[in-house]
């Protein structure tokens, strides 16, 4: 017995195959019948890509963004799989929308196919539920804020607060929101969808295709063909075209994109998904008193009309000409949705604030993902990725406590930036201690007790600069120059005011270790001690505000600045 025969005896697969593929297509195969198959194909593709995504996705508020960023930027073809899944959802909305439009035009919802139509409406709702639950899962800014607004509409209805708490699982978005949305998205909705599609396909077996209106029964019977291979071939071509278009679009767009991690403290101009845009535009156009009503009623009215359709239009005539009122109504509805969608995108494109906000969001997203790729995301969660930036803590402290006096036009102290305590900086200082970039804005700089300009030949100045520079502990010091500088220092007017060893106070600051870690740490802690500025000190004492670790981080930051250029500074925040 052949292998196939053995298998057929035990499974009956040959008969199953025939039953599956030899259904007669009344009136002959046609490309007009492919949309349902395309929808089923796209659903299967979503299931496949979704399963692949779940190999890497972690549904927790602290992990979700990091896992998706890893998938996008590290995993081979991760961006592509996620892009297919993301755009595949849009393709499903489009394919099902076209399918339903065709059913409307061809009168396919009429007796005896009412159940099939209702299942189609239900499938549309399920697909929207998939899209809305899936939107939040990456836990990025776009999905987070859009979901907040969607749930806000729910919360604003009577009794909506309870519904909101049930949907978002608690009093605010968090871990439980994600586990809930994830469970719905990957288990509950697929199970319901699978059951629905199965019933819908069985109904199709029972009723067959909806043939074009106006064809006679005898002609239809005469032209009938089996599903295999005539219709199967057309279905396969259509699926392949849909897949090709989806792949092309995914490659063209570079995938789904991933925004910066969800951050309730960051500003973000939330926008809904493209298929919600018409509703979004509509609620912005109606008077604000009825806005919430319109937002909730418009989808209900639209959905209700679809459900009622087979009950309202019950006549047997499927010719669109005899149902012109319905066709006109549907055309107006589709045209209105399209017009509102276009208006919404146009309004945003014409709003400079919005465009600027989008650009800023895109920049933040690139930065967050670059940091995630380079350093990983701390276990504290998505937004903690910013703390992995070089000198993050020091720069945060600097911005909060130091920049006000040491940067910008309003500063009161010496300017501090790239090159601080480098040779050029020291040279500039010796040439003009009370220059604007140095002590010019301090009380000391304006007083009689300010340091005088160092009188020296260019060669002597080089030697003095090298001596001061050597105190920073930099590795690239010229010892011969330092020795000459030391001689100049000790035998000239410098030594009248400055010690340069130990911790003894002098009338000017003691220069020992000036610009080293230890020196900068102590200086920021308290610049008013005797060996630094003593009574001349104008800088606040930071020893109480900042711990030893923070002081040291600030000192390390200042030392990094010494050898840095403005370009280096730019590169820290790409």
């Amino acid at each position, binding site marked *: 017995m052949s292998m196939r025969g053995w298998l057929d005896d035990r499974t009956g697969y040959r008969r199953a195959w025939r039953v599956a593929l030899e259904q007669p297509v009344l009136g002959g195969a046609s490309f007009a019948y492919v949309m349902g198959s395309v929808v089923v194909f796209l659903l299967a593709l979503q299931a496949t890509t979704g399963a692949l995504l779940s190999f890497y996705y972690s549904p927790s508020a*602290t992990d979700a963004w990091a896992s998706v960023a890893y998938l996008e930027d590290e995993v081979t073809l991760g961006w592509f799989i996620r892009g297919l899944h993301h755009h595949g959802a849009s393709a499903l909305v489009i394919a099902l929308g076209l399918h339903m439009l065709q059913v409307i035009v061809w009168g396919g919802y009429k007796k005896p196919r009412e159940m099939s139509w209702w299942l189609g409406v239900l499938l549309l709702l399920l697909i929207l539920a998939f899209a809305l639950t899936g939107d939040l899962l990456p836990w990025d800014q776009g999905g987070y804020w859009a979901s907040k607004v969607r749930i806000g509409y729910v919360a604003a209805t009577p009794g909506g607060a309870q519904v909101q708490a049930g949907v978002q699982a608690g009093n605010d978005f968090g871990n*439980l929101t994600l586990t809930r949305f994830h469970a719905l998205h990957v288990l509950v909705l697929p199970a319901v969808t699978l059951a629905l599609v199965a019933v819908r396909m069985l109904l199709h077996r029972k009723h067959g295709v909806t043939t074009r209106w106006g064809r006679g029964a005898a002609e239809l019977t005469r032209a009938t063909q089996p599903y295999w291979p005539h219709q199967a071939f057309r279905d396969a071509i259509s699926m392949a075209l849909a897949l090709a278009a989806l792949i092309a679009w995914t490659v063209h767009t570079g995938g789904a994109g991933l925004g910066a991690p969800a951050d*309730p403290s960051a*500003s973000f101009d*939330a926008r809904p998904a493209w298929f919600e845009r018409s509703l979004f535009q509509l609620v912005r156009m109606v008077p604000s008193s009825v806005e*919430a009503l319109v937002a909730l009623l418009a989808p209900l009215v639209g959905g209700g009309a679809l459900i009622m359709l087979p009950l309202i239009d019950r006549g047997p005539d499927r010719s669109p000409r005899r149902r012109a009122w319905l066709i006109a109504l549907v055309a107006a509805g589709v045209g209105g949705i399209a017009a509102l969608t276009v208006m919404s995108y146009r309004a945003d494109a014409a709003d400079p604030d919005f465009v600027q906000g989008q650009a800023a969001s895109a920049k933040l997203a690139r930065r967050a993902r670059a940091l995630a790729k380079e350093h990983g995301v701390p276990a504290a969660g998505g937004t903690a990725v910013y703390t992995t930036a070089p000198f993050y803590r020091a720069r945060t402290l600097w911005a909060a406590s130091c920049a006000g006096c040491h940067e910008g036009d309003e500063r009161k102290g010496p300017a501090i930036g790239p090159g601080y305590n480098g040779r050029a900086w020291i040279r500039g200082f010796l040439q003009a201690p009370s220059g604007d970039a140095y002590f010019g804005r301090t009380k000391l700089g304006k007083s009689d007790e300010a340091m005088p300009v160092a009188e020296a030949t260019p060669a002597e100045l080089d030697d003095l600069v090298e001596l001061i520079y050597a105190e920073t502990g930099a590795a690239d010091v010229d010892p011969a120059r330092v020795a000459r500088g030391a001689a100049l220092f000790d035998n000239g007017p410098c030594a009248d005011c400055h010690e340069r060893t130990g911790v003894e106070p002098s009338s000017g600051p003691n220069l020992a270790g000036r610009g080293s870690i230890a020196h900068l740490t102590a200086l920021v802690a308290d610049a008013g001690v005797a060996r630094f500025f003593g009574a001349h000190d104008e800088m606040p004492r930071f020893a109480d505000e900042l711990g030893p670790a923070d002081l040291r981080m600030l000192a390390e930051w200042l030392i990094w600045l010494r050898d840095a250029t403005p370009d280096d500074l730019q590169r820290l925040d790409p």
Partner: protein
Amino acid sequence: MLLPAARYVLYPIGRRTVTAAAEPIDAIALDALGPIPTRVPLIARSVRDAWSATVDVPLGAAWVRRDAQGQVHALSAVCPHLGCAIGFDGGAGEYRCPCHESAFAASGDRLRGPSERGLDPLATVVEGDRVKITWVRYRVGGAAREPS
């Protein structure tokens, strides 16, 4: 059978699943504030989110200003309409929501748009030269101001 299953799924309703340390959050230096509102992120020292405890978690943001009398005022940056992040239009001197175009005066009072109430004020306390703000996430929608 059905009732326990429903109670399992509905467990989070009415529970405070996400909670932050209750103390006021150190927000900004008093000196940094003027009559023009400044946007300040509010970072909780710790947050309990169901099973996880995390430190330094951004909770939200406040618009903070100091009036001519030296009084500090803070407003939640969450739009009371539907929860988008409110921006401040310096030219017009008013707050605007980027989502549904609600507008609010610098005082937080509602000017126009779909929001049914003004911006939600947040309690502030000045300690030394630091301004501390107590974060509350109010329920969005409606004219009544209730913590969510």
